[in-house]
């Protein structure tokens, strides 16, 4: 053992204070990032990563169809109208599919929203690729206007055969305050 002080008690104290400080840092530099990595890897909470999928699929698997359910939820205090244009889609794995979500800001002021995706079952997360999604960034909307929010996705050809239905849920949050004036002004 390295001695950090001639006084053995002080030596113990220094080491233990270091341990305590490391454990405090551990929360921020290990636990939080590790949790996010695990979420991505295991699909915890059906969380998907925020990046567009860029790889290509080797053709379309016409032999089977997968049902995609769309669900829209508004978080507390979010006054927008927000709903999928189709509640359900039948798609082939490997094919590129497009749909839109409809949003309307009924208030007379500009607002910014952030949609948070969540996929169920969690096992399906790694096989559901979004090539374009309104959830990748915050969505500003002027007062009393509507918008079609686009979503483009591919279901992976390797999706396990026993998964017949994938539910994609978006919860929309009011982040006007968080986004600050810059985005509103845009």
């Amino acid at each position, binding site marked *: 053992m390295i001695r950090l002080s001639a006084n053995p008690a002080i030596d113990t104290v220094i080491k*233990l*204070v270091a341990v305590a400080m490391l454990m405090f840092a551990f929360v921020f530099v290990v636990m939080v990032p590790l949790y996010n990595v695990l979420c991505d890897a295991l699909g915890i909470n059906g969380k998907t990563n925020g990046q567009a999928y860029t790889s290509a699929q080797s053709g379309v698997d016409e032999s089977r169809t997968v049902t995609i359910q769309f669900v829209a939820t508004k978080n507390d205090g979010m006054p927008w109208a927000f709903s999928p244009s189709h509640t359900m889609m039948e798609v082939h794995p490997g094919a590129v599919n497009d749909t839109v979500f409809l949003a309307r800001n009924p208030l007379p002021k500009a607002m910014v929203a952030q949609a948070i995706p969540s996929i169920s079952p969690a096992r399906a997360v790694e096989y559901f690729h979004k090539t374009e999604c309104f959830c990748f960034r915050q969505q500003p909307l002027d007062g009393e206007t509507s918008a079609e929010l686009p979503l483009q996705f591919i279901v992976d050809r390797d999706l396990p055969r026993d998964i017949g239905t994938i539910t994609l849920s978006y919860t929309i949050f009011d*982040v006007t305050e968080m986004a600050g004036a810059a985005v509103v002004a845009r």
Partner: protein
Amino acid sequence: MGDHHHGPAKGLGRWLFTTNHKDIGTMYLWFSFAMFILGGFFAMIIRAELFQPGLQLVEPEFFNQMTTLHGLIMVFGAIMPSFVGLANWLIPMMIGAPDMALPRMNNWSFWILPPTFLLLASTLFMEGGAPQAGWTFYAPLSTTYAGPSVTYFIFCIHVLGLSSIMGSINIIATVMNMRAPGMTYMKMPLFVWTWLITAFLLVAVMPVLAGAVTMMLMDVHFGTSFFSAAGGGDPVLFQHVFWFFGHPEVYIIILPAFGVVSQIIPAFSRKPLFGYDSMVYATASIAFLSFIVWAHHMYTVGMPVAGELFFMYATMLIAVPTGVKVFNWVSTMWRGALTFETPMLFCIGFLILFTIGGFTGLMLSIAPADFQYHDSYFVVAHFHYVMVAGAVFSMTAAIYFWLPKWCGRMYNETMGKTHFWISFIGFNLTFFPQHFVGLAGMPRRIPDYALQFADFNMMSSIGAFIYGASQILFLYNVIATIVAGKPVSDKKVWEGAEGLEWTVATPAPYHTFETPPKIDPAHAHS
């Protein structure tokens, strides 16, 4: 560090500036008892409201403040400081040290506690009331949806954590550096061992709790989104961080209790502790396992099945070392020469009731069954069996056991036994029926309930009042002993007691072991 050869200073200054481990231990014990009464008072309000269905006494938001403060005060204000107090009094005497390694830090770690709890209790009178998200304060109820008191609450948790960490560092430094010559690790009394392991747990996890509340603070005031989905965070992350602290915390509370029981049962069995080595190893394995089972508190959050299975198996494993401990205690009693003074009665009470709590703990570890038990009164019953019958009963036993040594006066045995029986009956009447209502579907933390739960809740409330009242008897007995108890002068107050603390004069002088005692190398651990 002052002059060692005088007695205590006079007046208030003695207590404010003392660096004497016995004085500080005494202050910790009185403070924790005061908190026990306060937290108990909140429990009485809860049980009074739940006496019958309907809202009678308090409004739901106040009820939630009561459950939250009851939990926080009992865990952080009553149980933890009481064992720190016991450690202060006993560890130097048990290992033959003149005092704690860091006497001045010892003073600070105590004196930051009372103002902190005063602040925490004062949140009751703030606008929006005291914290009301439960002692587990899950986000976002405790962040986005909390009142202004959350900031004070976070500050309080930080200070409590600091106090615990300082106390633990002191204990570790004392045990590692201040043992009398010949007092090897495997000769230390089990109470010292369990506290050493507990102190390491505290140093490891209190900073994690500090991290959790720091993230809350940043979410509330500085616009981060650790626990809010809107900014890319996740409320479930809070639960993971909290329980990464919270599960070891449960063992922080119970391990010193194991230590106390391991001192007292041999004394009244007049027979050495059975399986000392395995006790040490079992304690260490429980401490290790406590770091890899946290998510069994969160089976219902929707973890992947692989995670559920891992945490289920790991949790079930804890039954093995815990079982070893219970078997060892029973074997210690086996073929001893037993007597049943008050400390022993409380230890036997501990043994029975803690084992029941352990069984329900095992049941709770089974994930599919836990989907039914989770957040029901079954859980409330379970953790009160381990917290109250485990920690509080053993603490009570410890007071009766060592009080004569501390003050040189014997408590009233009849009153002590009466206290035990009233406590034992009151406790079981309170918490045993809670298993039933939990299994029948009553969720925890509700101020009002469906009619089918009425009978058992009334029983439970009556039991709680009985248990609460029995503590007044306890308080009276302790004060009467200190003021006018029958003087005792035997060094060994109890016939079967073993250990260095029983080799000093009774009452224990203000300074003990200023020259290290001689440890008989052949002498087994006590």
